[in-house]
């Protein structure tokens, strides 16, 4: 009995896999050949939203995700976190095209949108200067907009103004969501790339990805500056709250109360404002 059931189940799975493969192929073909109508756009990534706004497509954005905080006056429905968005909420806005990143999108959602014959454009977001330029170029070309070069030039120019420090500051980025939940950014994070672009050194470069904050790590890395999101520092209760965290006051940054904050989306979004972000960070870290 059990054997029959297992075989049956596996058979159904196998068949459904094959069927889906066929469907996805045709869907992929469709997105390449059909023209993308840009009248109702849903953007599920902050950088993409900023790019769209910079390309003067703000009027057409009907839906955005929670990271799309810039421009602040964007009249689009906030759909929440990309991970917990449902196809229905997106489709309720009657979009003609949906933009997202390959890493953030839920594969189930991906499949549902493709079946709904909604043009789904997924961009592989790389957290680097080239990656950002690629993103802007891709978004622009998909919408047949030709006025994107100024955006790329703006980034290159702004970054070129950043002069190396006399003494490279050691920067530690701390991600906070309340005092109980503290993480540091090692390499292979957007924050690491930003710190390096600004000409500084990531104090936690020995670690990879986000790792929990420990007092020992603080003391071995001994950063000169602590970098946080505005919202992160706020959730700790300001600089005073930060200093209360174990080990912080023993670091150079803690002793000198050198804490730098920036807007989250600006700092780690890697969108068109990358240039401004690098300059602002460079100046603040001085």
């Amino acid at each position, binding site marked *: 009995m059990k054997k029959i059931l297992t075989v049956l*189940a596996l058979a159904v*799975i196998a068949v*459904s896999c094959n069927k889906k493969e066929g469907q996805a192929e045709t869907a992929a073909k469709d997105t390449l050949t059909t023209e993308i109508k840009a009248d109702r756009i849903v953007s599920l990534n902050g950088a993409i939203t900023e790019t769209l706004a910079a390309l003067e497509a703000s009027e057409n954005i009907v839906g955005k995700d929670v990271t799309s905080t810039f421009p602040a006056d964007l009249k689009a429905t906030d*759909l929440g*976190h990309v991970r917990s968005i449902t196809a229905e909420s997106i489709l*309720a806005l009657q979009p003609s095209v949906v933009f997202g990143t390959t890493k953030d999108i839920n594969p189930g959602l*991906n499949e549902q949108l493709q*079946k*709904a014959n909604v043009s789904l454009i997924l961009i592989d977001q790389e957290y680097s200067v080239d990656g950002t330029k690629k993103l802007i170029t891709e978004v622009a070309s998909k919408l047949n907009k030709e006025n994107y070069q100024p955006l790329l030039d703006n980034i290159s120019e702004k970054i070129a103004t950043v002069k190396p420090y006399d003494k490279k500051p050691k920067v530690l980025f701390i991600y906070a969501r309340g005092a109980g939940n503290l993480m540091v950014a090692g390499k292979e*994070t957007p924050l690491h790339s930003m710190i390096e672009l600004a000409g500084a050194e990531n104090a936690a470069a020995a670690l990879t990805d986000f790792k929990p904050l420990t007092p020992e790590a603080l003391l071995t890395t001994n950063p000169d500056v602590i970098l946080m999101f505005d919202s992160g520092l706020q959730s700790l209760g300001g600089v005073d709250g930060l200093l209360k965290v174990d080990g912080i006051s023993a670091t150079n940054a803690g002793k000198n109360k050198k804490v730098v904050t920036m807007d989250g989306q600006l700092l780690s979004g890697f969108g068109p404002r990358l240039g401004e972000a690098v300059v602002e960070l460079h100046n603040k870290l001085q």
Partner: protein
Amino acid sequence: MKKKIAVYKLTFFIVLLVALVTALYLGAYDFNHSVFEIVSTYFKTKTHTADSFVLIELRIPRILMAILTGAALSITGTSLQGLFKNPLASPDLIGITSGAVLFAALTIVFGSAVMHFLPPFLSYTLLSIMAFLGALLTMWFVYKMATSNGKTHILILLLSGVAISALSGAVTGFLTYISTEEELRNLTFWSLGSLAGSNWWKVCLVFVVVSIGSFRLLKKGKTLNALMLGEKEAAHLGFDIEKTKREIIIISSLMVGCVVAFNGTIGFIGLVVPYILRFVFNSNYNILLPLSMILGAVILLIADTISRTIVIPAELPIGILTAIMGAPVFISILINYKRKLK
């Protein structure tokens, strides 16, 4: 007594139908036509409009999945509670759910290399298959631990389940630690449970597994009643106790594994539904088993409908809702139990 049960069955069924029709109309997406019009238009033209896509490819499968999942979790919870003669028994207790979560975690963290090469839908199906395998393997392991000479010791089974859950929790915790942000988000999302990814293929597969499984479990009413007298007494009444234990455990694992594989972990239903029913109907499993299916379906359908309408356009993870509904009931179970121990 027979009439009374029939009345209850009918009432629950009507409630289910009402909930179903209501759920069809509620959601983030507003329809331009009535449900009936949309469906009939689709069948005439065989092509989807935006309305019909949302209704027929998203909402209806989701509603059906909620009904099937609620029914499956409830009937397995009821059967396991009867088998273990313990009101706290549930699929989680014998480790099935932990096994599924563990294998899903392993797949997410270690399989990420493989999964990147696969097209998205296949990697998601892979995840579901691994979760299903996890449930079966855990069940097999726990059952083997507790069975010797063809006899299954219920107490050892429960303890093995607890041990496996603890082990699985520890390994999953470790995986959480070594995982990347992306993997972590995947894992958290999966363990909160969601019916949002339901489609017709999943519904069909779950339907096959759940209907075959329920069909067999529904016949166990007399056996579970007899078990209340004790295993030896039940054997004297002609029941093959070892075969029954095997069957219930295997079928429960299959059903729960399947449901968890597609929807993530949804807690409390298997625990709470039989408990509520027992207040009214005592522990007569001939009544509890069928009613638990209907009541479970109703409760999960209502929970899912609330989860996707209360914070539009976002969704409240369904695990949170079942916990909110289940925790007070769980506490009252404990209070009741405590009172009896005095």
